[in-house]
C-alpha cells in the first residue's frame, strides 16, 4: 500500500504547483483547463464505453420489462432472487468453472512445455522459427473459423472419426453426446488459446539470464532442480499475469460455445455467457439478463482485483 500512496503523492504533487511556477503566456483560464483537455479524451472514452453501460446494466437489473417496454417496473432485487434460485444458472456456473479452470490449466501446461521446447539450446534457429510458426497458428484464427473448423473435423462423418475408425472406434458424437460435449468444447478452447501462453512464456524464458543456469549447474543442480529453482521462479510473474487474464477471458467465452453447440445438447455446455444471451435475445428478458451480467461482472471484478494487485506488487 505504501508504494501506491507514494506513487499517488508523486503524481499529484506537481499538478497544483506546476502551472503557477511556469507562470508565463496564455490566459489563466486556458492554463487551468489545460490538464483537463489532456485527460478529456480518455475520461470521455471510459465514461461512454465503460461507466455508462455498466451503470445502465446495473440499473436494468433492478427493473422488469426493461427495453421492451417504455415503462419498466421497479422490482428491486427480485431478479437476483429468481436467478439465484434457478437450477439452470447453477448448471451454467458449474460448466463455466469446469470450462475455465481446465482451459487455463491446460493452456499453462501446454504453453510452458512448447515454450521450453522452443527455447531449448538443442533445437536449431531455423527449426525453432518453423515450429514457432506452426505452434502459434491456432491463435491466428478467429473464433468463427475455429468453430467451423472443429465442427467439420468432429462431425460424426468427419476426419477425426475417420482416423479413429482405423483403431476400431469411429462413431463418436463428440459435440452431440451430452457426456462428451463439455469436454470437447473445452478441448477446442485449449487448442485455440495455448499459443498466447506459449508466446508470453517464451519471451519470459528468453529473459532469464544464462548465468543463473550456469551457477545452478556449478552447484550440482540437475535439470529438474534447475527448472524448479531457476526457471519457474523467474517465470512466476508472467505465469500469474497470464493466468489471471486467461481466467477472465475464458470465463466470458461465448462465440465458440454458441457456434459449436449452442449450449446443448440439453444444457451440457451451457455457460453463464450463453445463459445470459438466451435470456436477452430469445426470452427478451433484458432485466433478468442484466442481472446475470452483473453477477458475472462481480465475479470478473474479483479476478480483476487480484490481477491489478499483482501488477502493482510487481511494480
Amino acid at each position: 500500500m505504501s508504494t501506491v500512496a507514494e506513487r499517488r503523492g508523486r503524481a499529484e504533487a506537481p499538478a497544483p504547483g506546476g502551472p503557477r511556477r511556469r507562470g508565463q503566456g496564455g490566459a489563466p483560464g486556458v492554463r487551468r483547463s489545460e490538464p483537463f483537455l489532456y485527460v478529456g479524451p480518455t475520461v470521455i472514452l471510459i465514461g461512454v464505453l465503460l461507466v455508462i453501460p455498466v451503470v445502465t446494466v446495473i440499473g436494468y437489473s433492478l427493473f422488469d420489462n426493461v427495453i421492451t417496454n417504455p415503462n419498466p417496473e421497479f422490482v428491486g432485487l427480485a431478479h437476483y432472487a429468481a436467478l439465484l434460485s434457478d437450477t439452470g444458472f447453477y448448471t451454467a456456473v458449474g460448466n463455466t468453472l469446469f470450462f475455465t479452470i481446465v482451459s487455463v490449466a491446460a493452456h499453462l501446461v501446454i504453453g510452458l512445455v512448447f515454450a521450453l521446447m522452443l527455447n531449448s539450446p538443442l533445437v536449431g534457429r531455423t527449426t525453432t522459427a518453423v515450429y514457432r510458426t506452426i505452434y502459434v497458428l491456432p491463435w491466428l484464427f478467429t473464433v468463427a473459423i475455429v468453430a467451423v473448423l472443429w465442427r467439420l473435423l468432429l462431425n460424426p462423418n468427419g476426419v477425426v472419426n475417420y482416423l479413429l475408425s482405423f483403431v476400431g472406434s469411429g462413431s463418436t458424437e463428440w459435440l452431440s453426446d451430452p457426456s462428451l460435449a463439455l469436454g470437447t468444447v473445452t478441448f477446442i478452447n485449449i487448442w485455440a488459446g495455448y499459443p498466447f501462453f506459449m508466446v508470453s512464456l517464451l519471451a519470459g524464458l528468453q529473459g532469464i539470464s544464462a548465468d543463473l543456469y550456469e551457477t545452478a549447474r556449478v552447484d550440482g543442480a540437475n535439470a529438474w532442480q534447475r527448472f524448479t529453482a531457476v526457471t519457474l521462479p523467474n517465470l512466476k510473474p508472467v505465469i500469474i499475469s497470464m493466468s489471471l487474464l486467461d481466467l477472465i477471458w475464458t470465463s466470458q467465452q461465448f462465440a465458440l460455445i454458441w457456434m459449436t453447440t449452442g449450449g446443448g445438447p440439453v444444457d451440457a455446455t451451457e455457460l453463464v455467457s450463453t445463459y445470459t444471451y438466451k435470456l436477452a435475445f430469445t426470452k427478451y428478458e433484458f432485466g433478468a439478463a442484466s442481472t446475470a451480467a452483473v453477477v458475472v461482472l462481480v465475479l470478473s471484478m474479483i479476478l480483476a482485483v487480484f490481477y491489478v494487485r499483482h501488477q502493482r506488487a510487481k511494480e
Partner: protein
Amino acid sequence: MTQKRKIIAGMSAMAAASLVLTGCGGSGGDVDADGNVVIELAQWWEPELPDGELRGLIDEFEEQNPGIKVELLSGPYASTREQLVTGAASGTMPDVVGLDGSWVNDFAKQGAITDLSALMAEHDYDDSTLASQVEVDGSTYMVPAVNFVYPLYTNDALLAEAGVDQPPSSRTEFADAARAITELGNAAGTAMPLSLETPSGVQNQVMSWLWASGGSMLKDGKPDLTNEGVVDTIEYFDELYQDGVFAPGAFTMKEQDMVEEFTNGRVGMMVDSLAHLTMIRESNPDLEFSISALPAEDGYDGKRGIPYASWGLGIAESSEHKAEAWKLFEFLMSEEANAELASMAKAFPGNTESVPDFVEDDELMAEAFDIYQAGYPANEFTGLPVAEDLMRQMNEQFQSMLEGDISVDEMLETTQESWSAEF
C-alpha cells in the same frame, strides 16, 4: 515548447469534442443531397439471393417512385434479428423490416412495428390478394412477402436400393423406408437438425408432422401439448430415434448440416425448405431426388398442413417516413414485383395473383406448387410470444426425452408448463 503544448491541448480538445459528437450523432441522414427521402429496408434476403437481384428489384421501385431512395441493410438471418431487437429497443428500427413470423408477437407487443391493418385502411388497400397475414390481437403486423414450404425430399437411388419404389406418404411407410435405408449401411434413413443455436428444427422437422396430419399444439390460442396428436407424434420420433435411423450428431446438427448430408447421399430422406433446392442441385448435379408432401398419420385423408417459413414484411412504428415505407411495401406486394421476388427466391408468392416463372419450367417446383395448393400453409409458432424460446424449451426437453432421461409424457407436461408461463 508552449506552442507545441497548445497544439497538443487543442488536438485533445478536438478529439474529446469529436468523441462526444460521435456519441450523440448516429441517426439522421434520411434526406440525401438531392432532396430524396432515403428509407431503409433491413432484411436477410439479399445474401440468400443471387448477386444484385434484390437491388435490381429495388431499383425498379426507385424508378417508379422518384424522390424515394432505398438503402438495403442486409445481413444473415440471426444478425438481422439481433439488429431489429436492438433497433426496437432504441427506437431506431429501419423503416421497412424483413420479419420472421416467430418475431412478430414480441415486436408488436413492444410497439416496435406498426399496425398494418390501420395503414391498409388509411390507403384504401385491397388486402384480398394477400395470401396470408400475421395478426396479433386481431390486427395485422406482418404480411408474408414470399413463403418457403417444407416438403419431404427423398433420394431416389437410396430408396430404390432399399427396395422402396415411391416416396412414403404415411408415417408407417416413412418408418419402414428409413429403417430399410439405414440397414444398407452407407447412409442414414433420415436426419433431425436439433441444434440449440437455432432451435427451429422443433418447428420444421418435428411439429410439422403433427400439422401434416391435421393436428394442433394449441387450443384457443393456448398451449395444448398433451393432446393425443402431439403425444403420438413425439412417440413416433422417439421410436425412430431408438431404431437409430437418424444421422448421428442430431443434437448439434443445424439445418445446413442436414442439407449437406442429404446432398452428399449420406441421408436418404429429409424435411427441408424448398429454398435449398437450387443449392442442392448445384452442389451435386448427379443427385436424383424427389419432392413430396409430408407423410401423415396412417389412414389420414384430410387436408395436409404444409409447414412453411416466410420472408415477411413489416413497417417500423418509429419510422418518420411511413408514407414512403408504405409505398415500398405496396410495391413489394404488387402482382408483378411479388412474382419477381418469388421467382428469384424460388418461393411461393405472398400475392395470390402473382405467378412465379419457375412453376412453368421446373418440374420439381411445379410438383411443390401442387403440394402447396393441395394442402394449407401451417406454422403454429407464427405469432406466438417468444416463439424461438418456446422452440428452445421444447427442443431441450425433446433431447432429454430422446436420451432416455425422461418419458414422452414427462417431456410434454414439462414443456406445457413452461410454455403456459409465457402466454
